């Protein structure tokens, strides 16, 4: 018996709906597609599911396309009455629902948790452009954190994270071309993934000459809002004989917070809230950064990815730029293949669950044209940052 709750569980099934800038279907129909795919993948039936987790759950105020609802919506949609459930907007990165599920399974509350992340941000943006829903900062006086950003037109994480990127560039000499290497790598991998949204070749000239969003970020530094759903099933390790195929192990999680929960009151040299979970994950495993065969690092913006590379110890703080420069080290056949399905920058912003899906695909050697060669054994996923981050370290079934 291991004393780590992580070792009591496996990731037994994955499923993904159609994903696109705008998928012309009700988002809950996409949820159903992803759930059906995950159940079939695991060899389980809906009746086997006794736990349900999602994030962010129902949101107050304008939904921003960031959520299709929470437990009420999902239990009604699926006809489920789970033994255990959770939906939280404040969790350990986008990996939070998986980590919560693992704790619940290890704690004996349930045996198969369906974990779902669903978004319709692509469709929502179209509605916003048409004036059918209000823009961010709309709708009256601002409260909470928004009052410290909205009166200055600092409406988006693109603005908040751009300021850390500027600090990193001026402190360490990081260049736009170095950030661009992350975007070009994502696009090169997406070109090998038929499910990715943007697959056309991207050159450094394209990257540098794209319209600016919030300096130093241009269009290709920003991930792609989309419609799409990913479902992941977290099961007790004792159920492995019931499964259709070998699952993936959860080796360790990183959940700790080590800095202020703020976009501007703490560090300026990396995206906030990545240092805690990044350090924590290495305290829960004997594996080291050098043991990681493939990494899916959260890339809401190129700079987020750079922050995670440094925080996780793949390179020194401030050395992220040279680490990714030219893209060779992070390519499919490099020493640390990165965001192998195209990441959120080119595959689409599935809010962390796309990265988790891909990490599992890689450990099954199921990546097709974007499979990392040499049968990767260890796959690391980082999610979030800005708001709290969370890390999953996954290993091939043995």
């Amino acid at each position, binding site marked *: 018996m291991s004393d780590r709750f992580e070792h009591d569980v496996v990731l037994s099934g994955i499923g993904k709906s159609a994903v696109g800038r705008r998928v012309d279907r009700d988002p809950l129909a996409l949820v159903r597609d992803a759930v059906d795919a995950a159940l079939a993948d695991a060899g389980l039936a809906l009746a086997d599911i006794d736990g349900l987790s999602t994030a962010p759950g129902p949101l107050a105020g304008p939904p921003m396309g960031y959520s299709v609802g929470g437990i009420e919506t999902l239990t009604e949609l699926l006809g489920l009455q789970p033994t255990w459930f959770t939906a939280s907007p404040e969790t350990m990165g986008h990996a939070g629902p998986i980590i919560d599920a693992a704790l619940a399974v290890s704690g004996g509350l349930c045996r198969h948790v369906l974990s779902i992340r669903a978004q319709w941000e692509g469709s929502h943006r179209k509605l916003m452009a048409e004036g059918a829903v209000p*823009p*961010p*900062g*709309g709708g*009256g*006086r*601002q*409260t909470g954190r*928004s*009052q*410290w*950003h*909205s*009166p*200055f*037109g*600092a*409406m*988006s994480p*693109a*603005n*908040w994270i*751009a*300021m*850390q*990127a*500027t*600090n990193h560039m*001026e*402190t360490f000499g990081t260049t736009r071309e170095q950030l661009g290497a992350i975007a070009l790598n994502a696009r090169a991998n997406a070109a090998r993934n038929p499910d990715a949204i943007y697959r056309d070749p991207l050159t450094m000239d394209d990257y540098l000459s794209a*319209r*600016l*969003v*919030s*300096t*130093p*970020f241009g269009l290709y530094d920003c991930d792609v809002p989309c419609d799409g759903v990913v479902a992941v099933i977290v099961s007790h390790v004792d159920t492995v004989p019931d499964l259709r195929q070998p699952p993936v192990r959860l080796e360790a999680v990183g959940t700790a917070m080590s800095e202020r929960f703020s*976009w*501007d*009151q703490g560090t*300026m040299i990396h995206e906030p809230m990545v240092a805690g979970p990044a350090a924590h994950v290495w305290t829960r495993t004997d594996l080291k950064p050098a043991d990681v065969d493939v990494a899916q690092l959260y890339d809401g913006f190129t700079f987020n990815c750079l922050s995670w590379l440094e925080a996780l110890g793949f390179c020194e703080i401030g050395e992220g730029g040279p680490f990714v420069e030219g893209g060779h080290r992070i390519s499919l056949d490099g020493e640390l293949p990165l965001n192998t399905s195209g990441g959120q920058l080119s595959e689409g912003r599935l809010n962390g669950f796309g990265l988790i899906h891909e990490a599992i695909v890689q450990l099954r050697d199921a990546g097709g044209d974007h499979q990392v060669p040499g049968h990767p054994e260890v796959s690391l996923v980082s999610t979030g940052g800005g708001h709290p981050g969370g890390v999953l370290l996954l290993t091939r079934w043995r």
Partner: protein
Amino acid sequence: MTANRPLPLLSDVNRFFWTSGSDGRLRFLRCRECRAWAHPPQPACRSCGATDLAPETVSGRAKVLGWTINHQPWHPAFPPPYVIAVVAMAEDEGVRLTTNIVDVDHEQLFVGMEVDVVFHQDDDVWIPLFRPAEDSQ
């Protein structure tokens, strides 16, 4: 850019901050016990837990820690391009504001730039903006 700028909802905790500029001076909440600053304002000190906090005037001098020129039209009140920055107050680098840098040549922006507060009144709110400090160019 003043048409319908989003404004804060004033409360007993934040009113002192958002109206501080009415006399041209910037204030932050400070703990009377351990002297730590408390921003954003809240009813208890993050450092020592004391609940005896009071607004204290600062010089209004700050240093740019990060900046960006926003080009994306997010909101009708903010036609791009405009400069957003995180500035650290001279009294304590841990006390920050996300703000706009105004009256600045975009080519002159840099991390470490010294700036001074200037207030923009909108309705019952005095919004603290910053411009390059004249004595540090």
